């Protein structure tokens, strides 16, 4: 296994770990699955709610990743695109650090519309943006592998990759949330809800800044 394979593997792990990270955060929605099951007195409501949250999150990832995957077909501008993307992610992180207020429009979403809420919550917190530098990194390696193929092929491959990254990330996120939700629902009880809830606002914003800088760095010195 060459150093490049290792780097690609590391990037995929980053996709998975960021999924876990989003998933365990109650703010991303797993308590709503517990609530749904308790409200409907039916344990089947739990996976259903998690499914809806996952759908919203997945679409939110795609909404961010797809435009970048399309842009990358401008191969000559790859460096600028990757630098720009990194800067956007850093800017989002700094914005969230400075503006610690939560977006009020999220509170207007009907509590039964979990997919919509999950989509908007992920969008508002820059969850998709966090994946962009990682995604572009993976694209970089892929691009090298395929060499200078036709732009059309490249774009198709990047779009496929965007779906894959979003899917892997969402599966990781949902699994992490599901484990906690099931434990709380079946064994631990609601008292643990507030115990597992940590204020990650600052950590989250800093993660965006770090990932953004990583994107810029890898654009300049990596692939």
């Amino acid at each position, binding site marked *: 296994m060459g150093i490049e394979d290792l780097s690609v593997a590391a990037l995929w792990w980053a996709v998975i770990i960021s999924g876990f990270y989003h998933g365990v955060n*109650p703010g991303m929605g797993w*308590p*709503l699955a517990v609530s749904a099951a308790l*409200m409907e007195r039916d344990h089947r409501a739990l996976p259903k709610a998690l499914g809806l949250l996952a759908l919203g999150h997945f679409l939110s990832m795609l909404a961010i990743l797809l435009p970048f995957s399309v842009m990358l077909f401008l191969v000559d501008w790859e460096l600028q695109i990757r630098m720009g993307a990194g800067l956007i992610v850093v800017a989002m992180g700094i914005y969230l650090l400075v503006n610690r207020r939560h977006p009020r429009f*999220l*509170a207007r*979403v009907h*509590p039964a519309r979990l997919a919509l809420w999950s989509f908007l919550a992920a969008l508002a917190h820059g969850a998709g943006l966090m994946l962009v530098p990682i995604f572009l990194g993976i694209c970089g390696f892929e691009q090298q592998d395929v060499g200078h193929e036709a732009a059309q092929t490249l774009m198709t491959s990047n779009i496929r990759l965007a779906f894959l990254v979003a899917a892997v990330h969402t599966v990781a996120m949902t699994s992490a949330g599901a484990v906690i939700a099931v434990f709380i629902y079946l064994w631990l009880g*609601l008292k643990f*809800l507030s115990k597992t809830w940590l204020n990650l606002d600052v950590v989250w914003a800093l993660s965006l800044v770090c990932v953004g800088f990583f994107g810029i760095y890898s654009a300049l010195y990596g692939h």
Partner: protein
Amino acid sequence: MNLRPDPTFYASPKIAMQAPVENFAFTVMLSPDGSQEDGIAVVDVNPKSDTYGQIVHQVIVPYKGDEFHHFGWNACSSALSPLTGHAFLERRYLIVPGIRSSRVYIIDVKEPLEAKIHKIIEPEEIFEKTGYSRPHTIHCGPEGIYVSTLGGGGKDGTDGPPGIFIMDCETFEVIGQYEMDRGPQDKHYDFWWNLPQDYMVSSEWGLPPQFENGLVAEDLLSNKYGHSIHFWDLRARKNIQTIDLGENHQMALEIRPAHDPKKSYGFCGVVVDTTNLQGAIFTWWRDDDGKWQAKKTITIDPRPEKADNLPPLLQGFEAVPPLVTDIDLSLDDKYLYVACWGLGEMHQYDVSDPMNPVLAGKVEVGGIARGTPHPNGKPFVYGPQMVEISRDGKRVYWTNSLYSTWDDQFYPNDEGGQMVMARVGENGGLELDPDFYIDFPKGYRSHQIRLEGGDCSTDSFCYPSA
């Protein structure tokens, strides 16, 4: 900002009941004639403390004539839903409106013994940003702090209907009107909701000219006070149904939904039925077709009394009306407490079956033409009014004043403020604690009570009791 949710945010009513008990109560001190500045009394309710049952601190505001009435928290258990997006608020500030001045005080009670004013919102800001006046009931919910008002715009508050406005729960900035479609709603009093089911219910007292200078007997006898309750799509901010309880059911006041968010019912107290002077409780619920229904499930009869013993307002009726002016539901949704301010009685109903309440306990104290003294022998002026139940359901606190000008009409020769507490028996029943009796400082009356860590009329829950 906390790193964890505030320990006084409870996921379910059951968890709230098991939490540590209250050590302090916060009670309104109001100067009925505006000769002194109003305030919030901090009361020691920890039986192990040397100052148990005493006012241990007062936050006196800098203005006169605010007339404090109801108040509430900046944040409560409603913050534990990911949907609201502010799980890390602190339950730290009391939002205290003046219903006469329309001024709103934000009081920091993080250290109850050093409670102090954090911010003052001047009336002009409220008029300008909301078009409403006379702010009243406070609830914290999905979009921040919701404040009900009793008046619209203009000097006498009749320029446009009253309603609810929203304040930011972190900066306390007044944001604006809540309603997007109010339907037929043209008067306002109380409101509360079920957060996961996304409905809100609101009620009606009367417009400012109908209460500010006293009860208007002609308006009451011609059934011109509020008698409807309104059901809203909470997040769409839209009135979806209005139920007229019948025009004889004058003044539909407190709205008490079941605390367990699985349930789709609640109660509303009606002050007086003008056909027979009864007080009444309606149970409202959502039927299988999703329509809201309401039915009278409790009636309380007036007590015949010689005209000579009655205030002028009641002499023609030769009876004391119960005057149901506050109700409160325990967190297990089992007991509904009903203050009969005219009779001088506090009733406890077992509402395990909300359609068939059963009287489980009763305390007599104060009352028109009766004036039952407290068990410690001291007087209890007026009658039982604002009632608050401890989260564990074992202690019930109440005060005695209804509203400055109305106190003077129904109890013309009385004056004073008292706060008392009754203990709830294992299987129901209610008994006044002879050792808990607070006489308010001279010139002050008392009204709403809030308990440290939340109580039975503040917290809204996002998860069922399981």
